[in-house]
């Protein structure tokens, strides 16, 4: 049920983000979701792609530093309070959300969110127990 996310190191300088994006575009790899985290002097581009193994090979061959992280994708209703139903589950829990971001499109009135937990497996159990739909890679591709 876990999704493979690719993270790419990028210096916080003009033009540094475009190179990996261009490479994936040229190779016909679609970015389903992305988020850019930036510190003062560097940034991390995090992406969910259709074929992460190939994307990783291509990026590494071009000299990018790539890290594969297991993240969790969930579907929530696209209305006020949709996100908090998920966050409520983890309030007071020892499971920690490192970061999160959203897919750009709403599908069937539902939004998809990516969560990076410190411990993804117990987090998935908790989500399911709370009645939240956890998406696998196929489900993401079919959205």
């Amino acid at each position, binding site marked *: 049920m876990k999704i493979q*996310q690719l*993270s790419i*190191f*990028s*210096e916080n300088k003009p033009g*540094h983000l475009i190179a990996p994006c261009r490479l994936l575009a040229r190779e016909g790899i679609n970015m389903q979701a992305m988020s850019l*985290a*930036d*510190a003062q*002097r*560097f940034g*991390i581009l*995090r992406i969910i792609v259709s074929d992460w193994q190939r994307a990783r090979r291509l990026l590494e061959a071009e*000299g*990018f*530093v*790539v*890290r594969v*992280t297991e993240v969790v994708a969930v579907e929530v209703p696209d209305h006020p309070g949709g996100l908090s139903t998920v966050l409520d589950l983890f309030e007071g829990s020892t499971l920690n959300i*490192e*970061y999160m971001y959203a897919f750009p499109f709403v599908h069937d009135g539902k939004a998809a969110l990516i969560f*990076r937990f410190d411990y993804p497996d117990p987090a998935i159990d908790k989500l399911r127990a709370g009645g939240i739909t956890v998406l696998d890679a196929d489900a993401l591709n079919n959205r």
Partner: protein
Amino acid sequence: MIAVKESCQTFHPDSAQDYVPPALLAELQFSRLKAIVARAFDRVPLFRSRMSDRALTPESITSLSDIALLPFTTKSDLRDTYPFGLFASPMEEIVRLHASSGTTGKPIVVAYTQQDVDVWTSVMVRSFAACGLHHGDIIQNAYGYGLFTGGLGAHYGAEGLGATVIPISGGNTDRQIMVMKDFGVTAICCTPSYFLHMIERAAEMDIDIRDLPLRVGVFGAEPWTPSMRKRIETLSGIRAIDIYGLSEIIGPGVAIECPEQSGLHIFEDHFYPEIIDPETGAVLPEGEEGELVLTTLSKHAMPMIRYRTRDITALLPGRCPCGRSLRRMRRIGRRSDDMLIIRGVNVFPSQVEAALLDVEGTLPHYQIVLTRMHGLDQMEVLVEVTPETFSDRIGALEELSTKIADALEHVLGLRVQVRLVEPHTIQRSEGKAKRVIDRRLPS
């Protein structure tokens, strides 16, 4: 034409030694050499074993030129015998310890008996006197006080001269300028780059140093160029004097320029100079460029026999118009090793490597970039991110960068900037990355 405020020449009795006829000086050097070699042989096991390896005893020294028979001492000898292994005096006779950074995080420790402190004071008195300072001068000592030899060395010298010393130490530029103006300072000791910063800051404070009584700057502890000197003298109207020294030998006061400003007179009645080929170790004839090797002729607590300074210079032929018989060396322009001097602190690229290895487990590609901001050296270390160190979490990368900065501070004793960069951004030539980019000095 640079308008330089002229100094009034007076004579300090200690300076008499500067004018000893060369034949007498050589006699003095020879007798002191024999005594110091005997002392080191009797009391320093490392020196004794090296002498024995060469089948030498103190009696083998039958002339001054026999010094070339003796083994060299290097900075790594000081490191390997840390902390007290090269001391020739018991601790109860040692009145002072100083330390400077070494190559592995452990500092290099140097020791002084009371007699050594007196010699140090005397050579600093002669240094100040040689550049025209005297009783009645007000000397602002902006060298750092502490384990670094610069601060206390200049302090004792200024007091010994009979001048008024202001022990302001380094930093707090606005206060430095206020004191310089309000206390009627006539001479300043600091690094040349810091003084340039003071000039700029003074201008911002609407103070023109040319209007102040300040007339001499005694600048050292870092390499500087003739163009920097010209800038300092033009902008401030003072005479900028180059002083040379190193902790291993005594601290500041090994050599100084006289007002002729054509080479630094070495106080060779205490520090015997040789110029060697850094590759072969062979002594080079006068005038040829090579590595400066110094022997402390009178140091009791820690005699240094043929210490390799790694500084590249030449002994200048001929007598200086100032009349001193002391030989002169050309100002130091470069070194024969890769040591960097950052705000007076010795830094080796190998120290940076050790710190990176310590944090990351393997050595990443890195580059040291040196710049100068507000007259202070800035050191930045660029470190390429590797698949092993990279994380998808910002916090983890910031932690990595802090860890590297902490490890560097531990080894260097200096807080430096760390910047994580993308792989392959550090230029490599023939597979080897250029380790140091020094943008501090105008080329």
